[in-house]
């Protein structure tokens, strides 16, 4: 039984706005699924539909096998949610928030242990949440989501408001939860943060799921270029032509003393470096793994380019990857 399954899920607002368009999404039990897309792509609406905060115009969805509209209570007793942009109760302390969630879920968690797990100091937990920084609020929200050892964690933009240390801790908790068999579904508009923890990703754009699969599979399917830049003492005349003739090199650009080479595959970078190194003195090498960002941009901007070919390519990839 999949942890999350949506069938032709559609949400329209009024006549013209389609927030989620015919979404078929399956998240298997036990996997860490990164739900990606730029702001406004329909990620939050999808999560709102899964949590029965909003009702679908068409289609249906199940969470842990329960229908989202008919059995919300059964779902809510087995999931943990970190909602996006939700404020805490200003007049309650951090600890009281946790005690309330524990009481509401009928679990026997120890508030102190949860606070420690998310890195919230006991002194901070004794204060009212009205004075919390965004990062502290996010940590408390995360502790609340972990109450009752949920089978599924739904985290909406979990890293917002966290500093790099907090993000690192967040990743560690997600990994630990996944190791315990918890399914994790989290949304993000930053691609980098999902790469380290996700088994699979889905990319949303304009309300539609444009790709799903492992990051490697998505990369491979797009055959994206890897680029490398070298700063050299001088650029020999013949070098550019030689590089362009090399198999696997997409393009060569020269900007002053910097040569940037776009390669079809990462191993080609090595050939490029040795070739340039043989021809001139290399001062600096910058190898950018831009494929990840580009992957994201290709999926999310590709459709807006208006080129029929790009659309056809994407459609082909989509069916291949999700199959």
């Amino acid at each position: 039984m999949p942890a999350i399954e949506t069938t032709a899920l559609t949400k329209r607002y009024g006549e013209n706005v389609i927030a989620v368009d015919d979404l078929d999404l399956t998240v298997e039990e036990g996997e860490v699924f990164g739900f990606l897309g730029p702001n406004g792509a329909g990620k939050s609406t999808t999560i709102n539909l899964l949590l029965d905060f909003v009702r679908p115009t068409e289609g249906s969805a199940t969470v842990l096998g329960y229908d989202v509209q008919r059995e919300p209570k059964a779902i809510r007793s087995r999931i943990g949610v970190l909602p996006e942009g939700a404020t805490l109760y200003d007049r309650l302390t951090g600890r009281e928030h946790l005690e309330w969630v524990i009481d509401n879920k009928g679990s026997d968690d120890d508030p102190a242990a949860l606070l420690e797990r998310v890195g919230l100091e006991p002194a901070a937990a004794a204060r009212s949440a009205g004075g919390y920084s965004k990062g502290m609020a996010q940590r408390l929200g995360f502790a609340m989501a972990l109450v009752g050892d949920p089978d599924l964690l739904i985290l909406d933009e979990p890293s917002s408001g966290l500093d790099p240390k907090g993000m690192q801790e967040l990743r560690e908790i997600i990994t630990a939860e996944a190791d315990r068999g918890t399914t994790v579904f989290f949304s993000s508009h930053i691609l980098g943060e999902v790469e380290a923890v996700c088994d699979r990703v889905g990319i949303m754009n304009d309300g539609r799921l444009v790709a799903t699969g492992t990051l490697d599979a998505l990369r491979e399917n797009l055959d994206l270029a890897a680029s490398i830049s070298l700063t050299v003492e001088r650029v020999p005349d013949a070098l550019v032509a030689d590089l362009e003739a090399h198999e696997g090199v997409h393009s060569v650009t020269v900007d002053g003393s910097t040569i940037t080479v776009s390669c079809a595959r990462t191993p080609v970078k090595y050939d490029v470096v040795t070739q340039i190194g043989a021809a001139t003195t290399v001062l600096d090498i910058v190898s950018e793994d831009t494929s990840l960002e580009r992957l994201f941009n290709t999926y999310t901007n590709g459709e807006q380019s208006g080129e029929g070919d790009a659309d056809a390519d994407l459609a082909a990839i989509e069916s291949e990857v999700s199959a």
Partner: protein
Amino acid sequence: MSIRSVAKKDFLDVRRSKSVWIVSGLYALLVVCFFYLGQSGPTEPNVVYQLSYLTSIGRVFIPIIALMMVYLAIAGERESGSIRYLLSLPNTRRDIVLGKYLSRGAVGASVILVAFGVGAVLAVLWYPSLEPTVFAGVAGLTVLLTLAYVSVAISISAATGSRSRAMAGSIGFYFISNLMMLVPSFSIVAALKYVLNGRLELGLSDYLFEFLRMLSPTIAFKKAFPLVVPSEVEAFMVNADPSAPAYLAPEVAFAILIAWLVIPAALGLWQFNRADLG
């Protein structure tokens, strides 16, 4: 029990609200003033007269207190997004509306009962007799009036998505059900009578218009007083017209007041159940 859990948390939250404490302090102070003035005058002090003055002031103030304490209960959480936490836990939307009603109703009733408790102590100290039956009856009806407006405010709060709309709805309801109903000749019903009888010459009975007025919780509260006050006491100014039809009886007024406790909250729940909370 999710309703209990929602109510418990809300109670913890709302009892820390300064405005609730200020409002309940002011109401208790009002009670103290009335009971002090009642025993310092030249006439023989009588608790029942003080209770009647208290209720005539209460008719105007208690609805404001109740609406103010409650109108943000759900709409405020929707606007701030904290309702997402509530609904991510094993609570249905029904649990939330009923839990909030329970907690705010308990706070409202406490405010009234504490004030009447203070009044009872003063009555024992300063007055020849406490008149416990009348005292309890008036306190009970006042609690029902409070709950009726709590029910309305819960309904408005559940049916509107933002603070500003909930506030507009509460103020609007206060004007229509209270200020524009209290004085018969300046009420909305009088305006309606002017149109129907004065202009269209339908010749409808005055009793019918009085019944329309009684549909307001404030007026139903007033008209239910013969149930708890002995008939020889005229202080409550409930015009006991012996020829009045049965539908103007105090029992009917009481039933209308009880209906206000249930129907608005039910309508609010119905609307909240259908709403998109994105």
